[in-house]
C-alpha cells in the first residue's frame, strides 16, 4: 500500500521545512556576536521618497549595533502617519509636513512628535532628450499645463515659439506626497490636477514614458533625475527671478523655488523616552545626517538647516526626558 510512503514523504518534507527554519534562525543569532551597546526593535514607516535615506541610516547603524533591528516600511506619508498616530511605529518618514487631520489623529492617539528636517529634494520637471525647445518654463506655464481641466495638448499652446508637437504627460499617482506637493505649489491647491495624464506610483515608469515620446513631460524627485540624466532632460524653473536649474546647490541656497522641498522624519517623543534602541538610532541618524544623505544620494541640509536640526533634536530629547546627547553609536 502506498499510504505509508505518502506519510513518510510528508514527514520528510515537514522535517526539511523545520530544519531550514532552524538553520535560518541560527544564522541570525550567529550574527549578533559583534554587537554594540544597544539592542531592541525600531519600527519606522512612511514616505517611500524618504525611505531610502532612513534605510541607509538603518543599514549603517545596524552594522555597528547588530542587536538592534530597524525596519523601514513604505506605506506613504499619509499611510505611515495613520500607523504612527496609533503608536504602532516609533517614527514616520514624511515628504511633506503633517496635516491638520493627522495632527488630530496623533492627539487622539496620545502620540507627541517632533518634526525634524533631514534632507532636501528638488521636484524635477523632465522632458525628452529630443526636446530642444523647453529649456526653461515659468511656474505660470507649468500651472497652465497641469491645472485641472487644462486644455493644453500641444507644446505650441504653452508658448507660441514652441513647435507643433503633441504634449504627452506623465506623473505620480494621487497617493504620493510628490503629487501633493507639486499640485500645492504649482496649481495652488493640494490634490488639484488635470487627470488626463498617465499616472504611476513607480517613477521609473515616468522616466520610460518621457524618454519614449518626443513631446513627453513628467515630474519626480531629484534622485530619479540624477539616475536617469542619460534618458531625460531637466527643465529650468522660473518663478519670477530667472531660470534656475534643479541642483543640490540651488536647493540648498533656496533659489530653486517653489519646487525645492525639505524632507522630514517625525519621531515619537514617547518612543524616544521608552525605547533606548530608538533613541540611540535617532542620535546616530542626526549626528551622521550629512554622510547618510550623501550615501543615499539625497541633497544634504545647508548649514542653517543643520543647526536647526540639532537644536530641534536636543529639544525632542529633553521633552522625552533623555539626558542630552548620548552617542551610543559612534
Amino acid at each position, binding site marked *: 500500500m*502506498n*499510504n505509508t510512503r*505518502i506519510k513518510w514523504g*510528508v514527514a520528510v518534507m515537514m522535517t526539511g*521545512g*523545520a530544519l*531550514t*527554519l532552524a538553520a*535560518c*534562525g541560527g*544564522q*541570525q*543569532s550567529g*550574527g549578533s556576536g559583534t554587537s554594540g551597546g544597544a539592542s531592541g*526593535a525600531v*519600527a519606522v*514607516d512612511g514616505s*517611500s521618497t524618504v*525611505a*531610502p535615506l*532612513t*534605510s*541607509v541610516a*538603518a*543599514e*549603517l547603524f*545596524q552594522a555597528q549595533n547588530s542587536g538592534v*533591528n*530597524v*525596519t*523601514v*516600511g*513604505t*506605506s506613504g506619508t499619509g499611510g505611515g502617519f495613520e*500607523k504612527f498616530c*496609533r503608536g*504602532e511605529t516609533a517614527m514616520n518618514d514624511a515628504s511633506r509636513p503633517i496635516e491638520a487631520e493627522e495632527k488630530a489623529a496623533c492627539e487622539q492617539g496620545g502620540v507627541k512628535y517632533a518634526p525634524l528636517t533631514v534632507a532636501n529634494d528638488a521636484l524635477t520637471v523632465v522632458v525628452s532628450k529630443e526636446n530642444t525647445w523647453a529649456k526653461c518654463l515659468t511656474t505660470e506655464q507649468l500651472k497652465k499645463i497641469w491645472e485641472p481641466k487644462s486644455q493644453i495638448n500641444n507644446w505650441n499652446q504653452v508658448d507660441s515659439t514652441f513647435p507643433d508637437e503633441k504634449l504627452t504627460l506623465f506623473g505620480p499617482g494621487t497617493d504620493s506626497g510628490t503629487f501633493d506637493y507639486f499640485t500645492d505649489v504649482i496649481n495652488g491647491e493640494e490634490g488639484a490636477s488635470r487627470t488626463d495624464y498617465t499616472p504611476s*506610483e*513607480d*517613477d*521609473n515608469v515616468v522616466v520610460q514614458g518621457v524618454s519614449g515620446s518626443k513631446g513627453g513631460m513628467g515630474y519626480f524627485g531629484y*534622485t*530619479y533625475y*540624477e*539616475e*536617469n540624466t542619460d534618458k531625460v532632460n531637466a527643465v529650468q524653473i522660473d518663478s519670477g527671478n530667472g531660470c534656475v536649474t534643479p541642483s543640490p546647490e540651488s536647493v540648498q541656497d533656496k533659489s530653486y523655488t517653489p519646487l525645492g522641498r525639505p524632507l522630514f522624519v517625525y519621531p515619537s517623543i514617547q518612543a524616544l523616552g521608552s525605547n533606548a534602541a530608538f533613541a540611540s538610532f535617532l542620535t546616530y541618524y542626526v549626528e551622521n545626517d550629512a554622510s547618510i544623505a550623501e*550615501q*543615499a*544620494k539625497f541633497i544634504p541640509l545647508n548649514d542653517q538647516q543643520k543647526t536647526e536640526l540639532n537644536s530641534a533634536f536636543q529639544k525632542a530629547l529633553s521633552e522625552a526626558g533623555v539626558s542630552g546627547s548620548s552617542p551610543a553609536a559612534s
Partner: protein
Amino acid sequence: MSPTLDDIAPLEIEAGTLQSHHSELPEKGFRWVLLLSLAIALLTLAALLAFILVSGAPRFNLQLFTNMPSIRLPEIAGAQSAITGTIWVIVTTAVISLPVGIMAAVYLEEYGNPNGRFHRLVEINIQNLAAVPSIVYGILGLGVIARALALGQTVITAALTLSLLILPIIIISTREAIRAVPQSIRFGSMALGATKWQTIWKQVLPAATPGTATGAILALSRAIGEAAPLLLLGAVTFITFNPNGLMSSYTVMPIQIYNWVSQSRDAFHVLAAALCIVLLLLLLLMNGAAIFLRNKYQKRW
C-alpha cells in the same frame, strides 16, 4: 401545390450541393483562431520568462541568498531576509491552514447533511470566499488580526491572513478529493466493523491524500506569490534581519521585488529580476511536486 418527394430528392443529392453548405474556409479559419489564441498565451509567457531570465541573470548568484538587502550597495545586496521571511510565513500558513481546511472539508463531505439549509449556506459562502480579491483579506487582517487581536505586523499576522485567503481553496480541493473516493470503500470498511472515524482516518483520508496534497500545494503557491494583502498588513520593505519567531517583523519575496522595482538605480531592477527567478523556481518546484504527487499516487478505482 406542395412539391412531392420525387421533386425534391434529386436536387438534394445533386453533386456539390452538400459541399456548398460546408465550405472549407470556416473550418480552417476556426482552427487558426484557436491556434492563435494558444500562441498569444504561450508567447506572452515565453517573452516574460525570457525577459526576467535575461535581466536577472547577472545577479542570480549566491550573494542573493547570503546577503541582506542594502540601499547603499546594490551591487552586493541580497534578499536573504525576504527568502527566510517567505519560508517562515509559508510554513506557518501551512501549519495553520492545512489541518483546519482538511477537517472542514471532512465535515462537509462525511458528516454534514448535503440537503440541509445550513450546509448549503456554508457551501455557497465557501465558493464565494474563494473568489474574494486578496486585498480584501488584507483589510480584514489589518483590522482584525493586526489591530483588534493586537498581533501587530508580525509573521503570525501574515500567516493567519494568508490562511484565511487559501482556506476556501484547500476546502474545495479536499472535498473534491474525498468525493472521488468511491462509496464502496466506505461500505466495505464499515461492513468489516470499522467505526465512522476509523473509516475516515484509515481509508478515506489516505485514499484522498494525492488530491488533497495537490490542492494544498497549489493553494500554498498562491500564498507565496501574494503581495497585496501583505502590503496592507505592513510587511516592511526594508529589513536586514531574518525573522526569529512568530512575533518577529518580516518581509517576503514579492514585497522585496516590489520595493526594488520602484528604486531609482538600475542595479536594483536587476536584483528584482533575479529575485523573480528565485520566486519562479520555487513555484515551479511546488507545482512540479503537485503534479508528481498526483501522478504517482493517484488511484484508478
